């Protein structure tokens, strides 16, 4: 191991607990750092190590589990975790680039700016690779909206996402909004971005060979966001509001100019650059050190060269500031002037702040004085932990509960239950949210928000892209393995219902403190469940983010792995929506269990709303899910599907009602004799979709389904202005009013 001579400022002989707490480094980790360095770190070095070894940057508890994920196939162009985002070959000479990331803690204490800067960060990850961002999605979780505080968070987060994303001219095309008790003090705000680039044009986040100049471009550096990566890596408590200075303030206008300048620079002058990197969590520290690591090089940073927005900043503050809207460009020395001139066009200032060396050491200078000189390899080698895992007995007992012990729903009550479910914020129309997002700019949004997946056109290509997010936290809490597998399966169903074939996943792992055995059990089992489902459905994991320590004095957050999925639709003009279309079209149920038993009520919205229970078994049949996806994609490509809608939250009755409401046309469905009314209408058996086809297409549909081994049952007919589903009989307009207004009734009050 290299021992580096102590830098000019004398290292602290002893370190205070306060100092370690501020950077969330344990005393053992401090000792390890000393051993690896062969000495005590200087102030600056300690700050840099603390940030890079934080859970947020260093993935100490999640990294040892990532090997479970399938990460490769012939379409995947990047290695998991090695670039700012994952890249997928989508054919026709184009690649898609995608990633999802959390901004949970900042949003908890400053919802507008926390959510806004979350959007800003994920967008920079995409254009750092030289890709043009073309779509955003947002997966949101809040506590019950009857509580004023939760409403304030929800309203603020949605406004923040809109305020930033709308200004960028990137459409926000999808996402989720889910309400649950355990998200009250710790909301989840996950933002996903999708970009595209011509094949062969992507740029790596590397520092390049020795002599390469490191330039910072974009915002000046201030004291905002100090210790943001650390803040994201500890639990929230009563003092968290005092961390408000750790939340950055976004400037989307600057980001828009930065994005246009960077995408144009990579498109027109890729040869001027060695690499490009976002200055995200841990600021200049993580961006430059990680670039050096990828290049197997060292770096020198001259902190006095960093343009600042306030005076008197120390080198420590400069290196750890998380000021937004900054990028680091690794520029060939002969093109420094060209790059400066390029950015001037957008009134952006690019400044050389350092260079690349061959000694493998990250040196930090304050003028003449060297204030840090630690090996890159030390800073990028945080310890990895595999804590003890044990299932929480209480949730295991709830999962083992048998729903058949409940009395069945009396048929006359089904009407009322359907309306109550349609009014649940988890099921109701999300129009209140997405009408605050520009979802059309770019004129490529073929299927707008509200259907199972958004579909985007790529100009000049026949094929299109479908994207969605899914994260069924309640199911994961009951059974982390099956619930997380279900997250992948539901996403795949949503993609397939739009007519696209699922091809890749990006994931955001939102969990509580992994040092506690029940939480680590949730985390490790969820990763295994997702991994197996991704393997079964042919969707490798290309990128992602782990957000741990999501807990407050109210307890841990519901374990919520969020799956962002990409699909490719062979012919974008054949995109399918969830809305029923024409009178007389036949309604079919594709997939398993036309007459499900009580076990399918496990973890359902029905149990939650009607019985106040989060209990029962969570099952997933990956073979059936995979067959259903194949059948849906084939049927869509053959032009058979007039509508398709995933059967998930709220079961068959809700799926049918949503297709009818979206199509503004009624439906009549016969269920015949069923074992249980509640399970038949509201059970959440997986691997099912409600589709409609033109009358007379029955034979083709049945043949296609049978070829894939998928059960297909004709259950009804589109038409009229009533919703008739077994014992349910309600005017469509009444159901539509409830579904359309539930969220605004809650949030505009």
């Amino acid at each position, binding site marked *: 191991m290299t021992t580096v001579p102590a830098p000019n400022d004398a290292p602290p002989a002893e370190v205070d607990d306060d100092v370690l707490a501020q950077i969330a480094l344990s005393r053992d980790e401090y000792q390890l750092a000393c051993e690896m360095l062969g000495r005590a770190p200087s102030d600056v070095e300690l700050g840099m190590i603390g940030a890079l070894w934080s859970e947020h940057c260093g993935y100490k508890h999640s990294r040892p589990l990532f090997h479970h994920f399938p990460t490769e196939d012939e379409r995947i162009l990047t290695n998991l975790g090695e670039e700012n985002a994952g890249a997928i070959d989508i054919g026709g000479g184009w690649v898609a680039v995608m990633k999802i990331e959390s901004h949970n803690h900042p949003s908890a204490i400053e919802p507008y700016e926390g959510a806004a800067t979350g959007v800003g960060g994920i967008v920079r990850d995409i254009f750092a690779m030289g890709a043009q961002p073309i779509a955003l999605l947002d997966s949101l979780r809040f506590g019950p909206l009857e509580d004023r505080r939760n409403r304030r968070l929800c309203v603020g987060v949605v406004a923040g996402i809109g305020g930033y994303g709308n200004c960028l001219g990137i459409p926000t095309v999808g996402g989720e909004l889910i309400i649950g008790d355990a998200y009250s003090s710790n909301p989840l705000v996950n933002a996903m971005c999708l970009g595209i680039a011509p094949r062969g044009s992507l740029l790596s986040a590397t520092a390049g060979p020795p002599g390469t100049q490191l330039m910072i471009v974009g915002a000046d550096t201030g004291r905002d966001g100090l210790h943001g990566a650390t803040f994201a890596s500890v639990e929230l408590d009563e003092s968290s509001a005092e961390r408000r200075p750790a939340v950055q303030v976004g400037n989307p*206008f600057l980001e828009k100019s930065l994005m246009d300048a960077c995408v144009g620079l990579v498109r027109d002058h890729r040869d001027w650059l060695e690499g490009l990197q976002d200055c995200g969590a841990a600021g200049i520290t993580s961006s430059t050190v990680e670039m050096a690591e990828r290049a197997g090089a060292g770096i020198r940073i001259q902190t006095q060269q960093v343009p600042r927005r306030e005076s008197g900043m120390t080198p420590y503050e400069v290196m750890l500031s998380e000021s937004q809207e900054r990028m680091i460009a690794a520029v060939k020395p002969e093109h420094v002037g060209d790059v400066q001139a390029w950015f001037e066009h957008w009134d952006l200032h690019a400044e050389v702040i350092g260079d690349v060396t061959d000694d493998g050491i990250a040196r930090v200078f304050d003028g003449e004085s060297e204030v840090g000189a630690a090996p890159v390899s030390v800073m990028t080698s945080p310890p990895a932990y595999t804590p003890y895992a044990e299932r929480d007995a209480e949730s295991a007992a709830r999962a083992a509960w048998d729903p058949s012990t409940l009395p069945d729903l009396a048929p006359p009550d089904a009407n009322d239950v359907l309306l109550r479910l349609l009014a649940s914020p988890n099921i109701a129309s999300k129009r209140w949210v997405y009408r605050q997002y520009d979802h059309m700019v770019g004129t490529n949004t073929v299927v707008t928000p509200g259907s199972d997946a958004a579909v985007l056109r790529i100009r000049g290509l026949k094929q299109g892209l479908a994207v969605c997010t899914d994260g069924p936290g309640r199911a994961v809490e009951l059974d982390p393995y099956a619930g997380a597998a279900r997250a992948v399966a539901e996403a795949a169903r949503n993609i397939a219902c739009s007519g696209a074939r699922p091809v890749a996943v990006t994931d955001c792992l939102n969990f509580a403190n992994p040092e506690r055995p029940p939480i680590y059990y949730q985390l490790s089992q969820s990763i295994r469940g997702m991994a197996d489902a991704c393997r079964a459905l042919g969707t490798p994991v290309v990128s992602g983010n782990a957000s741990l320590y999501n807990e407050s004095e109210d307890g841990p957050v519901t374990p919520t792995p969020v799956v962002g999925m990409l699909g490719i639709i062979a012919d974008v003009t054949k995109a399918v929506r969830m809305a029923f279309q024409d009178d007389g079209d036949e309604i079919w149920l594709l997939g398993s269990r036309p007459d499900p038993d009580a076990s399918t009520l496990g973890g359902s919205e029905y149990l939650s709303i009607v019985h106040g229970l989060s209990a029962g078994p969570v099952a997933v049949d990956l073979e059936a899910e995979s067959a259903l996806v194949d059948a849906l994609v084939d049927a869509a490509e053959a032009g058979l599907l007039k509508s398709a809608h995933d059967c998930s939250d709220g079961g068959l009755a809700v799926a049918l009602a949503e297709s009818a409401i979206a199509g503004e046309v009624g439906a009549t469905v016969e269920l015949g004799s069923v074992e249980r009314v509640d399970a038949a209408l509201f059970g959440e058996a997986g691997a099912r979709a409600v589709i409609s086809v033109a009358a007379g297409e029955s034979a083709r549909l049945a043949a296609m389904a049978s070829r894939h081994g998928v059960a297909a049952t004709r259950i009804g007919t589109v038409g009229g202005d009533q919703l008739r589903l077994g014992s349910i009989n309600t005017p469509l307009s009444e159901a539509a009013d409830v579904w359309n207004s539930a969220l605004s009734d809650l949030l505009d009050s």
Partner: protein
Amino acid sequence: MRFAVLVFPGTWSDWDCVYALENLGQVAERVWHKESSLDEYDGVILPGGFSYGDHLRCGAIARFSPVMSALERFAGTGKPIFGSCNGFQILCEAGLLPGVLLRNASLQFRCQPQELTVERNDTGFSSSCRPGQIVQLPISHGEGQYFASPEVLDELEDAGRVLFRYSGENPNGSLRDIAGIVNPMGNVLGMMPHPERASDPLLGGTDGNYIWRSMIERWG
């Protein structure tokens, strides 16, 4: 026709406008706001977006861009200028159209399909429409509430310069449901909705083409 599509820092509907016009066989070129001449163009488009991030007030900084004096001269020639969304806001700030756009009455951004009534079809921007026709164009704005003094509003109404009105629910609280107005010469139109987003059947509507076709018919 040969169109200039002006691009300010923060503009984002520039390409959408270019594609919409190209689809109709026109030439459309993006022109950076630092240019000082528009003489070689037959028409000018001011697209939507957030020029200068709406800092200070939407359109308030863009009006000082170098291209704006060329735009004023262009307006005087009688050739068409079309501003949508942020383009409308800039035209108002620059004094080429009266009034201002305030924050939506809901205080929320609104992106949704919107029905509009075409008030008259004897103008260069609406000749392809039937009088009183309802067209559907998307809106996407946080500050689209049209406001002017009662005298200015009466003047606009009396001169028949209100070209589009919101039909059904008024999405932003605009006075007299005003969605789009023209200047006295009839060659400068500002409107909040986005016709370039309704110019492609794949995206669910082509009513925007009524406006483009009218312009091409009158000035092409």
